[in-house]
């Protein structure tokens, strides 16, 4: 599904997002980058319809996203925390979100098991979240998001709580799942290495109130080291600007 973010801005007590515009074709893997506190998560929540924008509009296949509206598009969200229900097994957690789609119980089970297997959780279907590792919980959350076959998958620093090793494994998993399913993904991260490793389009936001500082296509493997270097320089400049702005 095609994603268009047109002049989106958000004010809380202070303006957080000034005006952000970018678009992504269906099947793109968009990474949102920027200094902490520049409104990456807020922008993702606006795209997901969890929060209204102060200015501008978000269009999914030319249909506007309205916060709180019961629209028919399927949006899967993976939050920073897993947000699994601790009293349900992993399978029940995934099957739960299939209920609004009107699938019969047997199909819900089958779909849930298939997506848990896709996320590398075969054999753990009947475990409760408290009994598996943080990495496995986050995989289950990803399986849940994918089980509804979302038009757009929103991921908000989904691997922030994982150690370096699990992070690398999960990045490869998500990249693989993205290649297999062809979903449009919007992925928020503060790690430049992560963004360069998984994204096809990198959107670098500026310091607060944020705008798009740079929009980079990431498909040339050879230039990766230089790209990481450039992005690191950019983010340091923006962090300094934001902190300078805060102390002034």
């Amino acid at each position, binding site marked *: 599904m095609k994603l268009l973010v047109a002049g989106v801005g958000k004010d809380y007590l202070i303006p957080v997002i000034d005006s952000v515009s970018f678009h992504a074709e269906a099947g793109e893997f968009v990474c949102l980058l920027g200094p902490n506190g520049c409104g990456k998560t807020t922008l993702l929540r606006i795209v*997901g319809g*969890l929060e209204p924008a102060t200015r501008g509009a978000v269009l999914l296949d030319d249909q506007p996203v309205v916060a709180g509206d*019961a629209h028919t598009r399927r*949006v*899967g*969200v993976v*939050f920073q*925390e897993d*947000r699994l*229900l*601790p*009293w*349900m097994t992993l399978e029940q957690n995934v099957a*739960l*979100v299939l*209920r*609004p789609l009107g699938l019969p119980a047997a199909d819900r089970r089958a779909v849930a098991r298939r997506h848990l297997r896709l996320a590398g959780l075969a054999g753990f279907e009947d475990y*409760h979240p*408290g009994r598996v590792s943080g990495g496995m919980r986050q995989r289950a959350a990803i399986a*849940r998001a994918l089980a*509804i076959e979302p038009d757009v998958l929103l991921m908000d620093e989904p691997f922030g709580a994982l150690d370096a090793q699990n992070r690398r494994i999960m990045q490869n998993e998500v990249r693989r799942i993205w290649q297999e399913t062809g979903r449009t993904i919007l992925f928020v991260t503060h790690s430049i290495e992560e963004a360069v490793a998984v994204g096809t389009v990198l959107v670098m936001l500026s310091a607060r109130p944020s705008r798009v500082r740079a929009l980079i296509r990431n498909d040339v493997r050879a230039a990766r080291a230089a790209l990481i270097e450039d992005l690191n320089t950019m983010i340091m400049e923006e962090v300094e600007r934001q902190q300078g702005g805060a102390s002034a």
Partner: protein
Amino acid sequence: MSASTGRARSWAARLHLPTLAALLVVLGAWAVLSWRYGAYVLPSPLAVVAGLGEIVRTGEVWTHTGASLYRILVGFGAAVALALAMGLAAFLSRLARGVVHDALAVLNSTSVFVWIVISIIWFGLSNWAPIFTTLMITLPVVASNIVEGVENVDRRLLEMGDVYRLSGHQKFAAIVVPSTLPYLVAGMKIGFGLALKVSVVAEIFGVTSGIGYIMNYSREILATQMVFVWALVMILVMMLVDKLVFDAVSRRLARWR
């Protein structure tokens, strides 16, 4: 070797051996004091055991315990039902939540004796007096717990429910009920203990059955040992219900932890 002493200690703890040792000391002191002050003030432990055997043999123990438990179940049951309704109202409407909070603050501050006197005026010398008293005293305890549980439902889980377009009913069944249940069980555990203590007091006035009635009657006919016997019955009922009902329910609820 440390493992074997550790196991010995855990066996000792499981059998409550330290508690039993303390109990022996208390029983010894009780026997001495009873001998010193006489059976009217403090009957001997043996007289209490004999009394307990007596009421079990005649079946009197079931009559009065049954009468008390019946009143508790009706009064406390009504309190739980009302508390659930209040919790549901607090969940559905912010306005109702404020009213429920204020009402509970008032009920929490009302003395047992107020309800005993009022229930005698309203219901006379009948079963309904202790039932009503039990209802009014346990309602705020159970309801406060449920309302607290409803307020502590994780907003982030509800937001997850919104993201995946769960209906209000689905969110209620999958998220609100399971996260409120531990609060409900905790409230019911405290509430039931309170119900037993309160209904027995209310039974002193106006009814002719129940543990409270028979304790007061025993005092009037100077059968002090029977006062102790019935106190023991009350304690046993309380501990049994705690172990058999509430501990089992709590364990079942905590299975996923």
